[in-house]
């Protein structure tokens, strides 16, 4: 076979040799296409698998860990929670609206494929500097796309993050997370149950969308490529997805389906191969039966990434009933093949076998690499000069930095109250929804601190997990499990590979300590353009619960006159990376001091105090302290024209980062009880001030509340327009 053709399919010549040797014959072009899709980084995790295997993926509440469409955890009674995060980075850079919209569509299908009804979405989105027209275009397109898709289907968007940094100028990140509710005895898996079961095609017709999208997602971009790659972005149809979701959920609750797979990246190829592999069976599919939107070759049908399609296995006797239900929802339905006992993947077209491969060579023999990696050099300690910076400057630096401003402009474009079960909307430390018809709530948060991880991938990752953990704790949500989205540059660079390996190691350490196993995830590599790599951005999505919705905390100030306390330990100013960067003390990544070692036991101890005090109803409101320190946390807590009056030894303390940091608001009458509780637990606290009406006062200096609030709430829109 032609070498160029092999390379164009993203396979190395060595990889091809392995296949050739196993089969001992030449491959058809369709078969080459299959390997191109299945041996791609996106599908087989060939670079990360060795390290991902080390992550904790199981504990007493895990029903399904990684390996299915989504992870599922046990929420007592018959309630299960399915969730996953997935990236759509490259497609969203090429065509932000459709790229992000189909990202949401894909992750929702992952959830309802498990038999779960999606109940919430979150989005972690990162862009380059807003000063460029390109970033404005990307931001508008991505937010519009996410909103369009999620709003139309009617799944509330309850949170996420939106950050801006020059490292993402040519590689924006779009990671979409979805959470679903499933009855534990009605979970569906991709494994087919019986030989002879019918393989059926459900959903939109197949078109040319995204042919080679899965291999595209792992390409290193070069800037000129953009226009050339445009046609391969998929176009989403949220209306179709809504019908598909209702149709599939009805089929599943009627017990008419044996197993189901989403035709996502690498389309029918990936879904049918997965089915065969999971069930240790074979599949035989007639491509002539696939509903088409336009004439397509067998090769194109195999690799099409048209959206809103599912592959399911049903018992022959249910064929008629399935058709009837799908007709009601106006969804295309076709029997296209059956489950065989051959352990081979066979595709026919025009009465000819165009693909006939053993499942083993496609899945089990997929390459796995142990790539070389470097451990970052030890950093020298440095004392920075803070003498020139005044309190006014520090406040101003935050209020002119998009990353600190209120992001309602983004969230207001999302429907966050549809389904009527939303308890905390975006913009709070975690989003919270109720499990319909119960008193149980689910909280979720997404986080990443790329700067920390760039400085020290292992410790930085611990901080990232801890931040997600704190986000949930602040709302009195008990953290339960994690989904991760590992966004990195090219692993062929041993420095980048080092970031990947060490951050996975950090994730492991923190996940074990917090007893929050990783139940699902996604890896997105090669996020670099013209040799410029992104900062390591392994995003964490953490999910937790509280069995009683009346016990959860708000992050917003409750009452004038209440006291403000600080828990946790401040990172000293020389060791607060975001302080140094955002207060413009240094921008040089080589100058930063190494991170202080994060004491995870201390994190747990303080977290338990917050949970206990919340259960005692002593906490009126609580917010975690992260980037921007106490000041930023307090700004986020403003509500109904309430502000704060605080006193601290040194104003710069208000801007430093924290480990186990929380701001808590308590009533004066509870002060004794709270402080003696904390003392008994050995948890230090700092009483810094109180909630006041329409004011911001720091060390007796009064600031114009409405001026600051106006900037905080409204300047985001001004800056990005």
């Amino acid at each position: 076979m032609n070498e160029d053709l092999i390379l164009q399919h993203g396979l190395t010549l060595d990889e091809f040799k392995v296949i050739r040797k196993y089969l001992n014959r030449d491959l058809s072009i369709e078969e080459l296409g299959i390997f191109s899709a299945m041996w791609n980084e996106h599908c087989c995790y060939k670079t990360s698998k060795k390290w991902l295997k080390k992550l904790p993926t199981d504990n007493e509440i895990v029903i399904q860990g990684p390996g299915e469409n989504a992870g599922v955890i046990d929420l007592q009674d018959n309630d299960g929670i399915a969730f996953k995060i997935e990236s759509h980075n490259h497609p969203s850079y090429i065509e932000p609206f459709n790229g992000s919209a189909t990202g949401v569509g894909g992750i929702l299908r992952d959830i309802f494929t498990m038999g779960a009804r999606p109940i919430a979405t979150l989005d972690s989105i990162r862009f380059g500097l807003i000063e460029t027209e390109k970033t404005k275009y990307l931001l508008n397109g991505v937010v519009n796309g996410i909103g369009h898709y999620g709003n139309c289907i009617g799944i509330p968007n309850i949170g996420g993050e939106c950050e801006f940094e020059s490292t993402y100028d040519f590689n924006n990140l779009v990671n979409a997370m979805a959470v679903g509710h499933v009855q534990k005895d009605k979970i569906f898996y991709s494994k087919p149950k019986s030989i002879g079961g019918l393989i059926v095609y459900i959903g939109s017709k197949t078109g040319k969308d995204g042919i080679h999208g899965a291999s595209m997602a792992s390409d290193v971009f070069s800037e000129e490529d953009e226009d050339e790659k445009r046609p391969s972005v998929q176009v989403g149809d949220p209306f179709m997805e809504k019908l598909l979701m209702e149709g599939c959920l009805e089929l599943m609750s009627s017990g008419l389906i044996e197993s189901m797979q989403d035709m996502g990246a690498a389309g029918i190829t990936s879904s049918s191969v997965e089915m065969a592999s999971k069930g240790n069976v074979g599949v035989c599919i007639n491509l002539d039966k696939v509903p088409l939107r336009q004439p397509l070759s067998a090769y194109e049908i195999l690799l099409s990434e048209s959206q809103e399609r599912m592959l399911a296995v049903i018992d022959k006797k249910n064929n008629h009933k399935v058709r009837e239900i799908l007709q009601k929802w106006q969804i295309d339905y076709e029997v296209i093949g059956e489950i065989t006992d051959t352990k081979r993947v066979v595709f026919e077209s025009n009465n000819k076998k165009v693909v006939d491969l053993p499942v083993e060579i496609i899945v089990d023999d997929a390459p796995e690499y142990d790539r070389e990696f470097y451990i970052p050099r030890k950093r020298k300690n440095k004392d920075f000069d803070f003498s020139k910076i005044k309190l006014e400057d520090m406040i101003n630096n935050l209020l002119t930095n998009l990353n600190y401003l209120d992001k309602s402009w983004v969230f207001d474009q999302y429907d966050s109250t549809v389904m009527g079960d939303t308890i905390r909307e975006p913009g709070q430390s975690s989003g919270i929804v109720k499990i319909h018809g119960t008193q149980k709530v689910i909280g979720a948060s997404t986080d990443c601190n790329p700067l920390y991880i760039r400085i020290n991938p292992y410790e930085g990752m611990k901080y990232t997990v801890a931040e997600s953990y704190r986000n949930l704790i602040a709302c009195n949500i008990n953290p339960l499990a994690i989904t991760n989205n590992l966004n990195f540059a090219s692993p062929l660079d041993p420095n980048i590979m080092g970031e990947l390996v060490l951050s996975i190691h950090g994730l492991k350490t923190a996940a074990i300590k917090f007893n929050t196993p990783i139940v699902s995830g996604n890896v997105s590599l090669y996020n670099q353009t013209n040799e410029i790599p992104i900062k390591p951005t392994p995003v964490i999505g953490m999910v937790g619960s509280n069995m009683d919705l009346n016990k959860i905390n708000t992050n917003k100030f409750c009452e004038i006159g209440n006291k403000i306390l600080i828990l946790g330990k401040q990172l000293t100013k020389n060791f607060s990376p975001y302080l140094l960067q955002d207060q413009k003390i240094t921008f040089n990544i080589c100058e930063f001091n190494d991170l202080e070692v994060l004491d995870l036991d201390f994190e747990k101890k303080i977290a338990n105090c917050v949970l206990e005090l919340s259960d005692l109803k002593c906490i009126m409101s609580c917010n975690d302290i992260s980037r921007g320190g106490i000041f930023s946390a307090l700004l986020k807590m403003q509500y109904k024209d309430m502000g704060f009056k605080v006193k601290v030894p040194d104003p710069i303390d208000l801007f430093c980062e924290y480990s186990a940091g929380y701001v808590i608001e308590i009533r004066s009458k509870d002060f004794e009880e709270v402080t003696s509780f904390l003392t008994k637990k050995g948890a230090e606290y700092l009483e810094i001030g109180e909630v006041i009406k329409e004011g911001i006062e720091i060390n007796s200096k009064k600031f114009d509340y409405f001026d600051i609030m106006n900037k905080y709430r409204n300047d985001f829109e001004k800056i990005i327009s």
Partner: protein
Amino acid sequence: MSFKSAVITFPGSNCDRDALCYLNDLTKGEVHNIWHEETSLPKVDLVILPGGFSFGDYLRSGAMASKSKIIHEIVKHANDNRYLLGICNGFQILTEIGLLEGALIRNKKLKFLGKNCFIKKKFKNNFNLSIKDNQILQIPVAHNEGNFYCDTETLNLLKNNEQIAFEYCKGEFSNTEENINGSIEAIAGITNKKKNVLGMMPHPERAYSDFHQSQDGRLIIESLIS
């Protein structure tokens, strides 16, 4: 006598379940869910056309739904002097059917708006009896096309006939808008001339339960039942 009601589901409706819960919890009476292809409607006191993106909002919001089979029965129900409430997409459908005046076009800022809004009642009718004059209600909106438009003549008719039920207003605290989507005269909801049909953009069914941010949405059902 117990209060009977029904919610119509169109393909793409996504607030039908919310509306069913709203009615179940607040009316305590019989509640039906009716698929859009049905050709008969049980005799009920109130029908809700729920929010969502019926038929994907393709062509125009509400256009295709206004041609569904069930619509014939809906019009009969309205002509029978029974209550009909269109929320969000339901409001759009009512204007497309022609049961309500005017049309809903894209929000002034061309962006989807998903947030809390504040409304107060303008003219009294059976849907807002329990609401005090000048009482400010906090109710979420979630729409792309909620910008109410009609020509001057129609607007004068709406005023003269006291058909304007709700208008947007500022909230109690700073940083709230007078007219969030650019509607003519900040109109948030109107009735027909007989005042048994109400269309409104805000979602009362998302503001009634104890755990919701506001319970002001209860007042509409309470008004109808009282």
